[in-house]
């Protein structure tokens, strides 16, 4: 029974969103068969893209090269070219430093990012769905508030949040970082955009006629339809949390609870005051982007269509 409702609903949804699939090829045709770009335009575009490529890849290249150097070579050889390979030594040093605390940092980052992004995605989709699909007084004002809130830099909030959490006695617990991560106004904004574009109101009505409650409609119908958008929000959140620095800096005490950003920073600080750890910082930075890269590539097909979806509407 339940599966039936769902299937019908989803089928109906597909049937009642016409134009989406046909529209895409049409857009492609237009750019292919329409105005032919001049040679200069092509050269300029390609040139700019190459510049951008170099700009984005150069730091990664530097990181890759530096991760293979020992301290002496790091300072005395040219930064963008390889010299003797010491990657093995560096990795070993990283693994053994403070009983392998680096691995723990990576683990912490994965934990905070996964839980934080999952919670935030669910809340964002639910809130966005509510804003998009229900008509009630003050909806416009609420939405404006959400959009406004997404303009506040999270760094600015770290200090007041710390005071609030200290009042509640929650500092230095996983909740002190997770709860703020759960709340993401920009995610709610995206959630509303995705709900607007992918959950047809007719479908919700059909489900209501079939006897489904509002919660059921959200979880069984709307969430599935918004999956692509959800993955995009999850990705963006995951990356944001992975790279976040100020919130854990304020909330968490002691290196065993650090995420990798904070851990690498503490190494860098050591490098400047007591002990030269720049090789470890560089190799560690390289290692710390690997999980993100893996995530990006595995979820690629989702976020590509997800990002496009927003832009088409």
């Amino acid at each position: 029974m339940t599966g039936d409702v769902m299937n019908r609903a989803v089928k109906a949804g597909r049937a009642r969103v016409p134009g989406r699939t046909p529209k895409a090829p049409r857009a492609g045709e237009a750019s292919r068969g329409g105005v032919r770009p001049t040679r200069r335009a092509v050269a300029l575009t390609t040139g700019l893209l190459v510049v951008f490529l170099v700009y984005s890849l150069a730091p990664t290249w530097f990181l890759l090269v530096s991760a293979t150097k020992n301290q002496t070579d790091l300072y005395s050889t040219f930064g963008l070219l390889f010299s003797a390979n010491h990657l093995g030594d560096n990795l070993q040093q990283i693994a053994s430093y403070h009983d392998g605390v680096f691995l723990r940092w990576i683990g912490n980052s994965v934990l905070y990012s996964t839980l934080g992004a999952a919670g935030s995605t669910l809340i964002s989709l639910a809130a966005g769905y509510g804003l998009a699909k229900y008509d009630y007084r003050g909806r416009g004002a609420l939405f404006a508030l959400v959009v406004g809130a997404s303009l506040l830099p999270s760094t600015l909030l770290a200090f007041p949040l710390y005071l609030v959490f200290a009042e509640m006695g929650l500092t230095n617990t996983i909740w002190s970082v997770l709860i703020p991560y759960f709340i993401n106004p920009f995610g709610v904004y995206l959630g509303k955009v995705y709900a607007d574009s992918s959950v047809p109101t007719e479908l919700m009505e059909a489900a209501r006629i079939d006897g489904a409650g509002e919660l059921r409609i959200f979880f069984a119908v709307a969430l599935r339809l918004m999956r692509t958008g959800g993955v995009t929000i999850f990705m963006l959140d995951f990356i944001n949390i992975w790279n976040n620095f100020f919130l854990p800096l304020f909330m968490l005490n002691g290196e065993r609870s650090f995420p990798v950003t904070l851990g690498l920073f503490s190494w860098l600080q050591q490098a400047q005051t007591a002990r030269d750890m720049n090789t470890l910082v560089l190799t560690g930075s390289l290692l710390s982007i690997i999980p993100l890269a893996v995530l990006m590539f595995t979820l690629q097909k989702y976020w590509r269509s997800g990002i496009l979806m927003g832009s088409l509407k």
Partner: protein
Amino acid sequence: MTTYRARALTASAAAASLSLLLAACSGGAGTEAGARPSTEGKVTLEFWSWTDGIEAQTKVWNQRHPETQVRFVNAAGETVYQKLRAAVNAGTAPCLSKMDGMNLASFAADGLLTDITRTAAQYKERYTAPAWNAVSPGGATFGIPMGSSPQFTAYRADLFKKYGIEAPKTWDDLIAAGRKVRQQDKNVKIFNMAGEDPSTLVDLSWQAGAQWYKADGDHWTIDFTSPEALAAGDVVQRLVDDDLASNASYADPGVFKTWDLGRTIAMTTSTWQLPIYDTNFPKSKGKWQLADSPVFDTTRPRTASNFDTTAVLKGCKYPDRAAQFAAWLSSDKESLTTLTDPASKSGLFPAVDDVSPYVDKIIPTDMFNKESDSAPVIKTAASRVGDQWRYGPNYAAMYSEMQKQWGKVIKKELTVKDMLTGLQKWTVNDLNSKDIKAVAGS
């Protein structure tokens, strides 16, 4: 003294009431000579630091002092200051934290520390006078010295010989030597001053006997333009005007090449940096020598030093125990022997009077040639740190202000004298705007 808003009373009151509560179950008696804490019973203190090696040492303490357990928290480096301020306001601050001298002064001025003048007095004799000054910015004591980094000079002996110059005794000598080198090769510099780092001027002023900040009864006297301060500024000005210094940035990992390849042939250095030089100077190994830092007045030789401290924060319930632990950490012979060993990676050099037991180990084996008097130079530096220098209440803010203008000095857009005159005004105004009485000295 009164420039600091004293907050000591509440803390000692808390300690007293607690001692009544716990008097029945008092633990083992203190073993340190002269250390007789008034708090009784078993207590636990939190201690934030970010120096390697301290954690292991804390464990040693905990084993031997069951009545005072210290919970070590590895904080993420210097941004901890911002967090500490938040923590004190929220009431979640640790009892103790590592701090540098200038931040200790700011924290004290903002009422974020506990005045431990009375309970800490018993430890005063263990440390050098300038180290004690660093924990007592306006007269009252707010912490215990942790370590020092007295300054001296390292120079390329091979190149000094080649250019026919000797290790400079005074800053005038250094400038003369720099000119002589420049005549022979205008690409070789005798010194380095990074555009982002005005610490050279601080060091020189300290060495010249200047007192940018001076506590005078109920007010601070601010003097960036005293004859001593201007003499220090003049040395910087001559180095800039005559292009005698390179401008390699310390933020650049390639900075060591400047010296390794012989483009700059001398530098001011200190104890914490020594152990890393063997790996960072692959080409110039074995060609270096140490010498005393150049001085202004050979009859009153002074050098400068940064000081690390262990500060006692506001809200600490057992300041006596906190001070006892901090003093043990940085003055107990066994503790210092472990901590100052380069194997501990702490980079710590003691702030005690007699440093001789701790010197030999930090001298790198490959960097210096056989003629270098490394150990005597280090000992001399430790013994002649100028004891007139004070960190004032807004020193940290003044330093960032100076940092902004220092770049212009290096680019020859501003003279040192104009910068100092400006800083003088800025500092007095800033202090007065915070309701701290301050007057210009000259």
